Structures are given as structure tokens and as C-alpha cells.
């Protein structure tokens, strides 16, 4: 393991192609700071990214990373962490990536509870494909594929995570740098699967869910005397679809990561040079 890293060590020399003002810049900065603040280095960090503007995040950061196919970043992260529990695994992507094409994996990743941090850059739109509605878009949201509004109710990611037995459920706002960073740090430190739904505005295609909208609407849980360990309180906040909150909404302190529950302690990359000792026993079983 390398010596104490600075957050800029997590920056790659590739310049982001995000639109100026895109919320993803702030999301990424917070991730890099949180990784450094929690004592990680690029050499022991693995970032799995989805597909979308948001998914490009792995390209602009420096660490071990894989940018995979649309919607499947969570299973990749699961495999990475289970095969090497020493790694700090972060998974990042958009609301379309995570709650639409990858929704099945999301529910199962939550309940499987592998120790990793999932940051969803929720801009309530499909950015990369140029402005179609996303699963978190409002019902009356007009886009190129929903000229009359979406006519469907949005997915509520936090409620979905809670229903699936989530052990860490949080929400942040990419432009509230300090809070966002702090929330991701807590997510990293949580043992188990941590969801951080990060509002990360798309300045090009979404003129409804804007910086101003989030800034004006977000209620910070720190100012609400909220106790994230209190399941009932958390449920109340999560099921309150009329308001949006920022902070760690629910955390199960007893959570133990799935890989730990299975007793996986060592990386699986060290194998014998030939058949393992006693391999003939495997054959003898078939006598």
C-alpha cells in the first residue's frame, strides 16, 4: 500500500468532456476528496463506472478502474470486492444506468450488501443520449421522448433501497461540496453496501431539476436532529416523497459486508503453481 495520498492523486490527466457547469464535476471532486480523506490511495482503489455522462467519471479519475457496459457496474464491483476485499471499491453511474437498465442489479446489490460505495449521479434525465426522460424524471417532465410528460411515476431510489434492506442510504448534492464529501466519506467507512444518491444537475438537457431547484428544496438532515440509526425515522423521511433530503438517512450500525460474512479475508489472486496440494482427494470423492 502506498503512503498517504492527496486527493489530486486521484485525478487523471485526461480533461473531462462534461459540459461546463455539469454537476458531475462536483460529484467527482467529492469522491476524490473522500477517498483521500479516508486514507485510500489510487493503487488500492477500484472504480467501476456505468455508461452515461456520469459513467465517464472513471476516465477522469486515477485508480484501478473499469468502465463497463450499460447498467452492469454493480455486478462488476461485486466481483472486484469479493475477489479482493482489501480494495476500496466505488461504483458510479447515472440514474438511467442504475435505476433503469441496471435496476435489477441495484435491488440485489443492496440486499447482498457487499462492502462498496455506490454513487448515483441523479440528474433526472438521460444526458449522454441527449435528453430523454429517465426513471427519476417527474411525471410531467417533457422531453424528446415524452412530449406530454412521462405519464409514469418516477422511481424513488431511496425507498427502493430501503425496501430491499439497504444498510446505508444517503443523499447528497454535488454542488454542496463539503456535505457531499462528508457523506461519501461516511459511505466509504460503512461496512456493507452504501447508496449515495447524488443530485448532479444536467445543465444542458434538464431545465427543471436545476441547481437552484435543488438548493432551494433540499432539507439538510443535520439541521433536523435526524438519527440515521433510527429505522422508523429514516423510513418517514424516505417515504416523504414531497420533500428531498440531504445527509445520511439510514445506517444500520450492525451491518457486516457480505464478503466478510462469507469469511473472505484474502485476495484470491494467489494460486499454486500446479494442482493444489491434496488435489487427488477431489478425484477420490468419486470412488
Amino acid at each position, binding site marked *: 500500500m502506498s503512503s498517504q495520498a492527496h486527493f489530486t492523486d486521484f485525478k487523471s490527466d485526461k480533461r473531462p468532456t462534461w459540459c461546463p457547469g455539469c454537476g458531475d464535476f462536483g460529484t467527482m471532486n467529492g469522491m476524490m476528496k473522500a477517498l483521500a480523506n479516508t486514507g485510500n490511495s489510487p493503487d488500492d482503489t477500484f472504480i467501476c463506472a456505468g455508461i452515461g455522462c456520469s459513467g465517464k467519471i472513471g476516465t477522469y479519475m486515477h485508480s484501478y478502474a473499469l468502465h463497463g457496459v450499460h*447498467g452492469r457496474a454493480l455486478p462488476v464491483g461485486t466481483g472486484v470486492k469479493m475477489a479482493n476485499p482489501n480494495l476500496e471499491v466505488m461504483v458510479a453511474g447515472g440514474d438511467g444506468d442504475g435505476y433503469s437498465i441496471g435496476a435489477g442489479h441495484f435491488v440485489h446489490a443492496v440486499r447482498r450488501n457487499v462492502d462498496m460505495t455506490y454513487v448515483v449521479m441523479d440528474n433526472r434525465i438521460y444526458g449522454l443520449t441527449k435528453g430523454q426522460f429517465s426513471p427519476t424524471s417527474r411525471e410531467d417532465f417533457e422531453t424528446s421522448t415524452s412530449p406530454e410528460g412521462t405519464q409514469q411515476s418516477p422511481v424513488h431510489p431511496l425507498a427502493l433501497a430501503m425496501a430491499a434492506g439497504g444498510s446505508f442510504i444517503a443523499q447528497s448534492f454535488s454542488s454542496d461540496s463539503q456535505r457531499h464529501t462528508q457523506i461519501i466519506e461516511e459511505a466509504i467507512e460503512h461496512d456493507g453496501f452504501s447508496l449515495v444518491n447524488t443530485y448532479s444537475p444536467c445543465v444542458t438537457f434538464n431545465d427543471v431539476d436545476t441547481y437552484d431547484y435543488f438548493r432551494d428544496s433540499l432539507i439538510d438532515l443535520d439541521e433536523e436532529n435526524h438519527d440515521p440509526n433510527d429505522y422508523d425515522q429514516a423510513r418517514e423521511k424516505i417515504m416523504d416523497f414531497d420533500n428531498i433530503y440531504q445527509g445520511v438517512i439510514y445506517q444500520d450500525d450492525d451491518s457486516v459486508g457480505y464478503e466478510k460474512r462469507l469469511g473472505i479475508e484474502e485476495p484470491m489472486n494467489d494460486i499454486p503453481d500446479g494442482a493444489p496440494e491434496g488435489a487427488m482427494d477431489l478425484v477420490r470423492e468419486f470412488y
Partner: protein
Amino acid sequence: MPEDLNWAVGGEAGDGIDSTGKIFAQALSRAGRHVFTSKDFASRIRGGYTAYKIRTSVDEVNSVVDRLDVLVALTQRTIDENLDELHENSVIIYDGERSWEADVPDEMVELDVPLKSLAEDAGGAIMQNVVALGAACEVANFPIEHLDSALEKRFGDKGQKLVDNNQEAARAGRDYVQENYDHDYGYDLETTDNDYVLLNGDEAIGMGALVAGCRFYAGYPITPATNVMEYLTGRIDQYGGTVVQAEDELAAINMALGAARSGARAMTATSGPGIDLMTETFGLIATTETPLVIADVMRSGPSTGMPTKQEQGDLNMALYGGHGEIPRFVVAPTTISECFWKTIEAFNLAEKYQTPVYVISDLAMAVTEQTFSPEEFDMDAVEIDRGNVVSEDDIDQYLDEQGRFQPHYDAADGISPRAFPGTAEGAHMTTGLEHDELGRRTEDTEERVQQVDKRNRKVETAQREEDWSPREFGNEDAENLVITWGSNEGAILEAMDELDDDVRFISVPYLFPRPDLTEAVENADRTVVVECNATGQFADLIERDTLTRVERINKYNGIRFNADELRERITETFAAEPEVTAQ
């Protein structure tokens, strides 16, 4: 070949047919006899005809034949379904006390044994099948001690009482036949001192994976591949690995991909429908140059097809599946023990060349149990080659001028260095997007061509450096050539025993890259390609490779070839006017 015995037990799904057959197969194997089994089952859990067939001989047996000598029939349908395989002296064991009146053809030998009541006397109706096994021992003149030993193995974990009851039940069956029937059945099952092991293709794949150092398996249950996952579960953890039952095949292959990126030897196994779901990620694996083994245990397709029936229909999918052009290796074990060896080889190929490798097997192999001498699994012969993995000491030579690690370095042989996460200075990204040597997205025309060429060059390197020879049998100078791939080898081999000397037989375990058979085809007068599919996918390949027309023997009714029918069809084919003329 000395006398072989063809035995079967059949009834309704849920009647314990499978375990009954397995116990008898194990008894025979423990008596030093060779065994080859086949299963006939429908895609339902309870109800529906199901049978477990065993062919046994002191000589090696590699196939089933279409003759049935002893049949334990738990239902009338068992008799009806097998009428064409039963012969004058076939012995039918059934329980006349049960509600059905067995309708056994006159010329056959009927043994009405009160299976259920004898079982009840021995401790429980559930043991009626074991009573039947005891009766079968008497018919076949097979020492019941070997059955005892198989019962011990089967029930030993559950306590001596259960073992005793079962052994008693077996004796009740044997004694009943002895006391009530005075008949010479004409069998005398010789035993030997040979130690054999008895396993099926899925188990051999799982065992190969374990021995090869596979530590991460993710899969989603599907017939007939599930057994690979079940085999690894509980065993892989003893080696520090794990099995994840994923939510679907998309997750399974992506988890395996993640584990492989972590540096573990990883695999998944599925059947056709699962392969379809995995195909998008298959391209990702190839382009990110991740070593991964994917076993496709084929069943009848397309779509959900016939889940419990056999076919070799996925060859084209394995060779061509996926959008764009994807370098890959495709190996196809030709026997159950080759399922073991080819899986090990697949892991080495995957890591040496940093590519996905398909291991293509099929239902016939997956559910067939066969005896082997343990030496066939010689662990000292196992070699592990992890390819170009860099350590912290040698990483410097793989960094660019700015000190950045290059996971897709454009090496002359196409093989780049690999740094496991955690390796200092090795941090890098990779992506399914076209990328440069650093693994970063690019649309630069030159970099695109460089990376495509580099990936394809790995295949060229492998073509040069690995041995892709086929398996050869028969007379090399024969006029008639038979070519096959996958699970047909055993049946053809047996068929050849009685074909005249004028057949050369080539069995191909490598589908991509594959051996060049041009010379063999040119040297033969007639070439026929045998495969279990309707369109002759492999025959098409051979024609393309050799620029010569070949004849075809195809079967696609869901049931594998057996030796008898192949002997007939091969003979017929070569006796008839050629269907095609060489050009």
C-alpha cells in the same frame, strides 16, 4: 468386447430414479467394472417419464447402445417407452402388488417382486428402489457386497441405521428372486480389482476449474449447467474462493469479470439462453483483455428450446456471437475426462492471452456418468500459466514516459502486461470503449487500428505457440474419413470397433483456433462430418477451411448418438453413392 449389460430404472420424476441409478452405477464402478450412463428426463420436477440407463462392461464403454437387458419398471410407461430396445430375453422387474397391472410382452422375463412391501418390512417404503437393486443383483449374478459398498457411500453420512436398513432391503430383493424364481438369466457380471472413479461432465468441469486455481465462480441456475455451480459450492471455499449465485446471467458474467480484474481466476457456466444474455459483456471482456472462462453446456435451442434434451447447436454462437469483431478461444471437450483437462487449459489460455475462452460442452456429457481410472486425472501433469503478470519490482519497464501503466501496451506478440489491483504504480483504467494503450477512450483512427490489430495478434501468437492438434483414431491411410467435435467421440469410437479398417476418425477439441484438416480431407476419398445439429455448423466450417465439400450425419431430435446407430449411418453413408463430389 466381453458381454456388456444394459440396465435401466424408469418411472415418474420424483420416484428417486436418479439416485437409484446412481447407486447401481456406483456399485458397478466399485466392483471394478466400467460404466457409462445416460438419462432420459423431462423438464418437470414431479411426474413425467424419467429413466436412468447404465451400460457396463469390464472393458471401457464410451457410449450407449440400443439394447436393454434388465429394466426396473416403476410404471407401465417405462416398459412402453423402451419397447424398441427390449429383446426376447430382457428381464423386467416390477411390483405387481402396486395398482398397475404390468403389461410385459410375452417373450420377456417377468419378475414380479413386491418391492414396496419388502421395503416396508426392511424399514420404509422409500427403499423400494433399493429392493429392486437387490433383485437386479440376483438377475445379473452380481455380488451384493458391491451394492452394500455403494449404499454405505450414499447413506453413510446419515447414520449406520439407514445404511443397515438399505442393505437389508437390498437383500430382501435378492432373496425374493432367489426363492421365487428358478431361472437362468444368463448373466455373470465379472468383477475386477480396478479402482475407478465415476463422474459426469459438469463435475469434471468443476473439478478442472478448482484444480486450475479458479477461486471465483458466479452463475445463475440453468439446466444442464447448474451442476458445475453445485459442484463448486462448498468445495471452492476450502481453497479460499467463493461461489455467488447471481440474480441473472448478466450479473453473473459481470461479477466474474470484476473478480478477474481483481486478479482471481474466475469463471461462469451457463447454457444457450444464458450465453445470449452474456454476449454484450463477452465483447467487453475481449476488448478490456480480461481473462475469463465461460462454459456453455449446450441444450436444444433456440430460445428455451428443449431444456432437458441434447444438441450441439451453439457452435456458431460461440464462434461469432457478439457485435463487432471479437478475439476469443473456443475449446470443446470430447470426453468427460477432457472436460477436466480442457477447463484447465482454458484458464491458461485465458490468462496467457488475456481473452475470454469458451468451453463448449453439452447436456449429453453433463448428465452422463462414466468410469475412469484415477490416473486420467494425473495432478502432477497440471500446469498453471498466469501469463504476463507484473509485480511491483518489474513494473517500471511497463510505464510510459510519464510513469503511467499501459494495460493495453502494443506488444509485438499482442500480449500486454497485467497489473493486479493493489500493485503500486499499476493503477490504470480500462473500458469497453475503444481505448489507447493507457486504457483511455479514443476515437483516433490510428489508435483504433493499433488496438484491433493488437487484439487479433494475440490469436496469431496463440496459433503459433499452442498445440491445436485434433485427436486421431483409426487407420491414417483409410479412404473414408469421419470428423466430429464434442461429445460424439465415444459413440463413434465404439462404432468403429466393428467398422472395417477403412475408416480414419478425427475428433476435434479446438473450434477456434482449430486444426487445419485440409490435408486429411484431401487425402480421403470420402469425408463425413458427424454432429448433433440440423444444419451442420461444423461441416460448414470444415468446408470453408478445406475448400472441399463434405458429407454430413446430423441428429437433432434431442438425443445423443449411440454407437449402434452411428455404426449403421456411417456404413450406409460410405456405401451409398457420394452425395457430394470433391472439387
